[in-house]
């Protein structure tokens, strides 16, 4: 494997639900340490695309290469590849019956087969990374939205993934809680984590993205570095969307 093999290479992904083709041929690459951000109106296939990457949704057509290895047709081995792709969901999907620390621990114990001691240490380390050590013994129902999402990030990070997939991580949070989640994500990006992010947070996109993709009707309409997309996007559709979102999420603009 050469040094410039992309961590992720997505090739011509298609996905339909019934007669509706939600993703209509999307290709892109992510190099190590890069953050790629997908923006675009709701219902344009961004989340479906993300789920097609780690095969939570099976694409109808196209390929996904993780470190150069094709994983769409990996059959029984997909759970091995998923360990390397952390995913954060809009609705957290924390394990309701487990405390925060056990939410992080369970995959270490059952998937990575660590000992109890190793798993606990690693879990506490990850909780520390997202500022949740004092909530280690709380159950998901006892956490705020921001805390829940930080916990779900810790849970994904504990597997030491090579790439993190974020599916609208702040969309179900109260506006005053988005900041603490975006902080964690910014720190990850700064720390060199490879990330693919679907978000409406223009401030984050502008700050963190190496490249922004504007998706419309299942396709990438255009893409480019933030400076270009924010100031001289080619399509009127893109410009109007970015303008509208920037106004909506203005408070995130002037961040760090």
């Amino acid at each position, binding site marked *: 494997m050469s040094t410039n093999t992309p961590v992720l290479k997505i090739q011509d992904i298609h996905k339909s639900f019934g007669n509706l083709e939600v993703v209509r041929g999307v290709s892109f690459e992510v190099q190590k340490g890069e953050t790629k951000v997908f923006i675009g109106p709701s219902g344009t296939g961004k989340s479906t695309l993300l789920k097609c990457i780690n095969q939570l949704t099976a694409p109808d057509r196209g390929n996904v290469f993780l470190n150069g290895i094709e994983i769409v047709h990996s059959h029984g081995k997909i*759970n091995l590849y998923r360990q390397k792709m952390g995913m954060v969901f809009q609705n957290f*999907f924390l*394990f309701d019956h487990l405390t925060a620390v056990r939410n992080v621990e369970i*995959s270490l114990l059952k998937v990575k087969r660590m000992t109890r001691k190793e798993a606990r240490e690693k879990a506490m380390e990850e909780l520390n990374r997202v500022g949740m050590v004092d909530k280690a013994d709380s159950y998901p129902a006892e956490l705020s939205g921001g805390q829940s999402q930080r916990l779900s990030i810790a849970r994904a990070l504990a*597997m030491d993934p090579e790439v993190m997939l974020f599916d609208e991580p702040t969309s179900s949070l109260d506006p005053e809680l988005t900041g603490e989640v975006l902080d964690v994500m910014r720190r990850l990006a700064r720390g060199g984590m490879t990330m693919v992010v679907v978000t409406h947070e223009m401030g984050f996109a502008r700050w963190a993205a190496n490249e922004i993709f504007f998706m419309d009707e299942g396709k990438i309409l255009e893409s480019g570095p933030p400076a270009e997309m924010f100031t001289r996007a080619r399509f009127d559709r893109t410009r109007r969307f970015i303008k509208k979102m920037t106004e909506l999420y203005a408070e995130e603009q002037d961040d760090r």
Partner: protein
Amino acid sequence: MIDSLQFIHNNLLPALWEGWGKTLRLIFMSVPFGLIVGILVATGRVYGNSPLAFLCRTYVLFFKGTPLLLLLFMIYFGLPPLGISLTPFSTSVLGFILCMGAYSSEYIRGAIQSVKAGQMTAAQALGMTRWQGVFFIVLPQAFRRALPGVGNEIIYLIKYTSLAHIIAYIEVTGAGKIVAARFFRFTETFIVVGIIYLIMVSVANKLLKTLEKRLSFPGM
């Protein structure tokens, strides 16, 4: 009155002790395995491939649709011609396990289906296989939700064990019946036997409540 107490003390209780012990043996042998069968059948119905799901559905239909007593007769009298002879004890335990498994599987199935789909999605996203997701994430949550219903089944089972005496396993009801007939003291006998069941059910209830409390989690 004195006469009754004397009968209870001298004749009835000594005869019932052994029967009570046998009742408890039936309960302790049937409940854990009945639960295991219930969990497996429910899991098979929800997550199994179609032949397995069909098999589990048929099992539940069969055992829900036939009286337990008939089931015991079938095992006890119907199997020997096929070369399978079971003792009254084994027959009773097998019948109780199969019956409890069928009923409790319905509660557990409902509980499994009430666990949000996102729980499985998250488990798989972390690299768990489908079955790991089922056993480590879905079932622990489902079991907690099924517990009140399953607890009811356990209590039914405690009382159903009285059927065992009909195929000659003399548990507490059977022992009572024998003493009552010999001394012609039906009223006292069946009141005492009833109290014994009340005690067992009360203890089971208490244990189940404690377990429910122990296993509950916030936001359930």
